[in-house]
């Protein structure tokens, strides 16, 4: 083995590099035949930590490798973003070529042309770089077992990104198949730092002992220092109490841009990204040509151009979303600006890490608050970075939608025997707890579309042959399935194209749906006029007049992680202690908290800044109705659940209707009638008894489950999104997940997919575990109820939130008598 390692070290020397200890450790572990997880940050040479031993192993197995090449695919490299594949390919090919191995490196993603794919099918490259979806598609092609028989290694890059998502479940299932098909397989993952690395490794390798016991977890010691600087408004008095755009501080960032080579400005949503880009240009026209925008809805060509321009140092700044979080290193990037709370420490660190790749130097990230209270978040982030706190990524359990998709995938290619596949999937982390009944349910679902054979039914999907092989016979169903594997689950997306041709990007249907031809909007930095909508395409032309209608996108609001919210609470409580015990001495507070002093003082004057042992409730009346605000400081998801729970429990006392709002700090129950808060406190509504039952009954849960069901319906193939770019009529097959959800609720409430929507809501959205802990904490606190005259500084961002849920215990007919129609203006 030492000889082999020497080959690699020599090559490193020739490049003028020196391998890091973690790289050598990984080489050795791989060559010893181990599986494992490598914990290394982006831009640390992780590609070479795993590609090198794959090549070395090949050299060892084929001593005559220079003269005689052994056929067949050797390794698969999974990357969550196709944008990363080119860099990996170049790095891998370089090493393979310079060692004269003759090994080839190929890419297969949604962007790979059909001709290239066909060529690959005949003759696979030695290393295939691909995405989880494309890997699934390979499992949907005939004879895959033979194609992959020679496979020796699968490397899953950025595993932390996949882990907490259903693409992670796709990977788990694919790996369970490869373990059988490729007897010599080694499985490796690469992950950035997360709180649950050990669990991440278990999920990757699955439950079978042979893999777990022969595995290592390798951590790189290369830790980058991060410096966090807050942009503090000069005049706190005029800084807004609410908002999420942050444009008030736009002028403050220009000096920062001027000081550094290239700056990445991270926003939290695509809409915010569009607006910042627009406003920067409007205020500083001299920046034209020097700044660009990068987000997931802009056409790939534009994105590639932007990425190249960053490398060429031809840009001063790029306004971006999470589309630039991952992947390739941009050496010229010196500074990062984060606009608005990143809500999680890991995300914040990842973004900080996009700057300054010179070893030994610190990454610098500026935090720009979008409203006053976000400065507390900034203060908390600083502490989190100092204290090395990172979040967990929670893996999915029993995702039946992904399992059904996977089973149909196998049925589309060579067919499968349930006995064999059941054994495999039970070894995955996700399906370790599946029962025989649930498995049978899934088989019935794909073969009969229900749980028993029904007369006159024409359901067609998977058929069972006489010797028990499950197979898709219909070519049309096979094609529809292949198309749906790759569909990104999101709102219906429309392509935006110029009438004269030329693709600009994609846009959500609800945004364009409310516009008429002739209306203008701003998208991808251009002002466009809608000409017509046709076949899922919005045809546009450049508009002459200017428009303030900036494109916006649904979703994208991230909740505070539990780790962040804990630190945030501690920061706030420290303010309360300061004011109570130390008088007005703010000198030892962080600069962010100091800047907030006037706001805290006002909050104290009108209400109270709660201490660690206090739970604050405020009530007041406005034109909109009777507001009641609660402040658990537990993050959006927990508040979402808690507001629903509380509203439900109050509604049991007497018929009432609430509209609910929440942010990361607290939540609001708004009603058109006054609320008896003392009665609420007396009835101990924060009890943890019957928590699950009460949550399930709160209408809130149904509404959330309805939203979760969208993904489930698409992944499990219940909703067919149509043929991309084809004018084939699918109109008679169009439905939406909402409608399906209602039909299941009314006619098939025991459907596992329907129930899964609720389970996901509790486990991933409402975070039942965290909610319970929060309630227990509140029960140990003193409740402080402050009736106020008007909205307080703390309440302001919550009561102005427009995204609302509702809960009611009144009869619908009674309710609508008090409602009014929205008349067209």
């Amino acid at each position, binding site marked *: 083995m030492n000889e082999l390692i020497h080959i690699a070290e020599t090559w490193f020397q020739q490049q003028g590099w020196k391998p890091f200890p973690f790289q050598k450790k990984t080489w050795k572990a791989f060559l010893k035949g181990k599986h494992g997880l490598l914990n290394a940050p982006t831009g640390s040479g992780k590609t070479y930590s795993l590609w090198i031993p794959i090549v070395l192993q090949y050299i060892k197995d084929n001593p005559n490798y220079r003269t005689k090449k052994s056929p067949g695919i050797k390794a698969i490299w999974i990357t969550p973003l196709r944008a990363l594949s080119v860099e990996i390919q170049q790095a891998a090919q370089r090493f393979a070529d310079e060692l004269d191995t003759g090994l080839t490196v190929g890419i297969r993603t949604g962007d790979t042309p059909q001709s290239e794919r066909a060529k690959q099918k005949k003759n696979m490259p030695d290393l295939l770089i691909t995405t989880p979806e494309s890997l699934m598609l390979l499992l949907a092609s005939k004879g895959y077992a033979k194609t992959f028989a020679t496979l020796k290694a699968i490397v899953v890059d950025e595993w932390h990104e996949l882990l907490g998502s259903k693409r992670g479940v796709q990977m788990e299932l694919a790996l369970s198949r490869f373990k059988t098909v490729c007897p010599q397989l080694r499985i490796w993952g690469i992950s950035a730092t997360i709180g649950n690395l050990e669990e991440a490794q278990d999920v990757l390798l699955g439950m079978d002992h042979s893999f777990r016991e022969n595995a290592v977890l390798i951590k790189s010691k290369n830790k980058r220092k991060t410096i966090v600087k807050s942009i503090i408004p000069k005049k706190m008095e005029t800084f807004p109490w609410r908002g999420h755009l942050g444009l008030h501080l736009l002028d403050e960032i220009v000096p920062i841009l001027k000081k550094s080579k290239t700056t990445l400005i991270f926003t939290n949503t695509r809409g915010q990204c569009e607006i910042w880009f627009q406003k920067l240009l409007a205020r500083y026209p001299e920046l034209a040509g020097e700044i660009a925008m990068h987000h997931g809805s802009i056409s790939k060509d534009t994105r590639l151009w932007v990425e190249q321009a960053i490398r060429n140092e031809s840009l001063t700044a790029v306004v971006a979303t999470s589309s630039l979080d991952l992947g390739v290193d941009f050496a010229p990037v010196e500074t990062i600006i984060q606009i608005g709370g990143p809500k999680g420490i890991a995300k914040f660190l990842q973004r900080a890490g996009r700057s300054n790749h010179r070893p030994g130097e610190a990454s610098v990230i500026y935090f720009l608050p979008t409203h006053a209270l976000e400065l507390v978040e900034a203060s908390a982030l600083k502490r989190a970075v100092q204290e090395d706190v990172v979040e967990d990524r929670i893996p999915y359990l029993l995702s039946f939608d992904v399992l059904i998709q996977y089973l149909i995938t196998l049925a589309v290619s060579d067919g499968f025997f349930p006995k064999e596949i059941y054994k495999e999937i039970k070894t995955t982390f996700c399906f370790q707890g599946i029962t025989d009944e649930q498995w049978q349910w899934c088989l019935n679902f794909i073969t009969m579309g229900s749980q028993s054979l029904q007369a006159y*039914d024409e359901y067609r999907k998977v058929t069972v042959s006489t010797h028990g092989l499950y197979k898709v016979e219909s070519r049309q169903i096979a094609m529809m399935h292949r198309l749906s594997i790759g569909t990104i689950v999101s709102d219906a997306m429309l392509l935006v194209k110029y009438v004269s041709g030329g693709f600009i990007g994609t846009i959500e249907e609800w945004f364009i749906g409310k516009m008429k031809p002739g209306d203008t909007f701003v998208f991808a930095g251009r002002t466009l006029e809608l000409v017509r909508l046709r076949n899922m395409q919005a045809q546009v032309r450049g508009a002459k007049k200017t428009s303030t209608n900036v494109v916006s996108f649904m979703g994208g609001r991230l909740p505070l992680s539990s780790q962040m919210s804990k630190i945030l609470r501690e920061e706030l409580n420290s303010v309360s202690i300061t004011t109570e015990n130390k008088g007005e001495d703010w000198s030892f507070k962080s600069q962010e908290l100091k800047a907030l002093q006037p706001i805290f003082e006002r909050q104290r004057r009108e209400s109270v800044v709660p201490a660690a042992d206090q739970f604050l409730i405020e009530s007041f009346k406005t034109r909109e109705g009777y507001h009641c605000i609660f402040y658990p400081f537990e993050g959006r998801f927990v508040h979402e659940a808690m507001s629903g729970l509380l509203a439900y429990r109050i509604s049991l006392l007497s018929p009432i209707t*609430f509209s609910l709002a929440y942010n990361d700090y607290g939540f609001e129950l708004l009603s058109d009638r006054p609320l008896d808060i003392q009665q609420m406190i007396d009835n101990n509504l924060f009890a943890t008894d019957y928590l699950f039952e009460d949550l399930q009954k709160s209408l809130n849960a149904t509404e959330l489950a309805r939203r979760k069901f969208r993904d489930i319906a698409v992944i499990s193939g219940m909703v067919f999104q149509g043929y991309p770019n084809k004018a084939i009529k699918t109109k008679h097959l169009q*439905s939406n997940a909402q409608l*399906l959800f209602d039909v299941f609720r009314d006619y098939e409430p025991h*459907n596992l997919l329907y129930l899964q929507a609720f389970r996901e809501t509790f486990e991933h959205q409402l975070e039942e575990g965290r909610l319970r802990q929060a309630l227990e904490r509140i029960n140990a606190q003193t409740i402080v109820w402050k009736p106020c005259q008007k909205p307080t500084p703390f309440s302001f961002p919550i009561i102005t939130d427009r995204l609302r849920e*509702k809960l009611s215990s009144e009869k619908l007919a009674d*309710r*609508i008598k008090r409602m009014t*129609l*929205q008349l067209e203006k």
Partner: protein
Amino acid sequence: MTASLFIHDQEFKLHASGAAYWVQQSMLLIADVHFGKVTHFRKYGAAVPLKASEENFQKLRDITEAFNPATICFLGDLFHSKKNNEWKNFEAWARDTSTTVILVSGNHDVIPPYLYEALGLTVVDALHIDSFLLTHHPTEHETLFNICGHIHPGIRLQGGGRQSVRLACFYKREGQFILPAFGTFTGKHIMNPQQEDIIFAIAEGQVVCVSNNP
């Protein structure tokens, strides 16, 4: 269960199922049933519960029994797709019923008229009764009042405390009365009401007037 709407001195009883009973004509008006849709989806691999389709037939039997009309008039989109097994259920229903059945054909009605006619139905493009014109698509007429379907009208209501609900509805505007979709597996289209429009929403088995004009 019902509310009454008067148009040109004629009374229409609006039922929570989405059907409307024209009292003077003893005619039951039903729009957008979309029979066969559930089976059509199942045929292409989407496992929509079959019960949703059975419920359609049950609703139809219940409403016929409730009003015992002389005539049933379907205002289009009776069948969602080409013939499939739900047609058998429809045949059985059509043979059983003693009522006169008329189909005003709609855009989804691709099943050839002679198949309906063989079951004793009359298929027309439009139906002219007194001062009324019954069609599938909303149609403007200089003198006649139009009763139609197609739109699947729904309405959004807002209340204090930022409440909001969306409900299927009967929608009357100048010269036109639009029925909600009767079928169980159908969506709705949210309307933009004008001041003078008359709207009855279907809320948990009740029909409630929600517009300013009764």
